[in-house]
């Protein structure tokens, strides 16, 4: 189908975006890569009167390393992150997750900020940001506020973004050399949204002991959340068949999967345990 009619404006600055949002309120939508928004307009799931194209605002783009802090602009595309040597060096979890997002032609256009603002429960970036303890920089006419990823995702497609706000950038601390990360996902076809996926990060000692473990799932709940019981079961332990089994057991407390188009709830819990084993094995390797 075709999208319903709307007006279009190419914003040149954040100030212009704020003016437009103030003036048009809820009838306006921000347009970044359009890889979710235009698809939903084509299916007539939304009918905004105005699209505000934000892709020409320079200060929202780019990936920048300042000391231990990495700043990822909202407009960085999935492909840019996948290709970035800086990301591979400082935030390998993102490099591991990127190839799972959609397909090449969509990764070339879809943006980091668009994916986070859209907050699909099966999307890769939200779970990664929760695990990395990322800070989201939200800007509006009223000023700038920083919200931790763990508070940003509030439910199914629901975030802490207020109507007049824009997600400008994400700040993440580089994961040090003694940290290990893993990203494992199951989907029916490469590039499809995940049936279930997991992002994992831990500090690993020379003796192979894991600490500061952080594990979050995608595709199993309305929003990504830390799997705290499993994390506790693993803290200070070495990866072995026993610890993998204990972490899997604890997932029963962490996850309450709901069935979707792909799988029944019980299948999802089973698959979550399978990929947890794979992720832990990868962390230990």
């Amino acid at each position, binding site marked *: 189908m*075709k999208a319903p009619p709307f007006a*279009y404006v190419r914003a040149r600055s954040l100030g212009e975006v704020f003016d437009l949002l103030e003036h048009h309120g809820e009838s306006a939508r921000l347009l970044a890569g359009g890889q979710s928004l235009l698809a939903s307009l*084509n299916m007539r799931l939304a009918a905004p009167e105005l699209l505000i194209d934000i892709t020409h605002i320079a200060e929202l783009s780019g990936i920048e390393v300042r000391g231990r802090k990495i700043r990822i602009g909202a407009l960085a595309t999935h492909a840019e992150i996948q290709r970035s040597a800086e990301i591979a060096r400082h935030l390998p979890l993102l490099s591991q997750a990127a190839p799972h997002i959609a397909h*090449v032609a969509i990764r070339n256009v879809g943006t980091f900020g668009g994916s986070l603002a859209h907050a699909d429960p099966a999307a890769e970036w939200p779970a990664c940001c929760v695990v990395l303890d990322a800070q989201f920089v939200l800007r509006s006419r009223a000023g700038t506020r920083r919200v931790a990823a763990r508070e940003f995702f509030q439910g199914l497609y629901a975030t802490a973004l207020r109507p007049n706000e824009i997600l400008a950038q994400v700040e993440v601390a580089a994961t040090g050399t003694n940290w290990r990360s893993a990203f494992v996902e199951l989907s029916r076809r490469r590039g499809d949204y995940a049936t279930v996926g997991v992002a994992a990060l831990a500090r690993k000692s020379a003796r192979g002991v894991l600490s500061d473990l952080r594990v979050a799932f995608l595709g199993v709940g309305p929003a990504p959340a830390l799997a705290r019981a499993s994390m506790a079961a693993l803290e200070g332990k070495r990866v072995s068949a026993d610890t993998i089994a204990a972490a899997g057991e604890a997932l029963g407390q962490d996850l309450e999967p709901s069935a979707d188009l792909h799988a029944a709830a019980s299948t999802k819990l089973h698959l979550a345990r399978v990929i947890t084993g794979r992720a832990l094995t990868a962390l230990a390797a």
Partner: protein
Amino acid sequence: MRRKKEIPLEHAPEITVTVNGTIVTRRVPARRHLIDFLREELGLTGSHTGCEHGVCGACTVRVDGRIVRGCLMLAVQADGRRVDTIEGLSDSGELGELQEAFHRRNALQCGFCTPGMLLAAQDLVAGHPDASRSEIREHLSGNYCRCTGYQAIVDAVEDVLAARRKST
């Protein structure tokens, strides 16, 4: 003090796009997709519309050298950019080897998916000459074919990669 100026809204903006090397200027409705602009206004019907929500890849075209979904980009977003389609890339000869391999390997039946498939395959051939069979599958995962069962398509791309490796 902040200047409060009216920012002009466009229902039918004028755009200038370099399509297959030719500069084209047109007024288009804001909601017009790039793929419909190419097909309906410029008569470039080689790229197809299938699902119109990003899933099938029939509408794959190149914008500024990178493959994109023509159904998930507005024509107005292509303003000031370079767009290449199956027509231009066939005429330039860039797709010649792949086209011949597709023909030889029977990698098309109805041909509906073929233009998009060729653009996605060429993206791989140009950027990833050492791709394995599974990497070929992965790169083409965003392009549906309802006829061939894919094996012949992967064979064709594999042939081109192998021939190139031999000749270098």
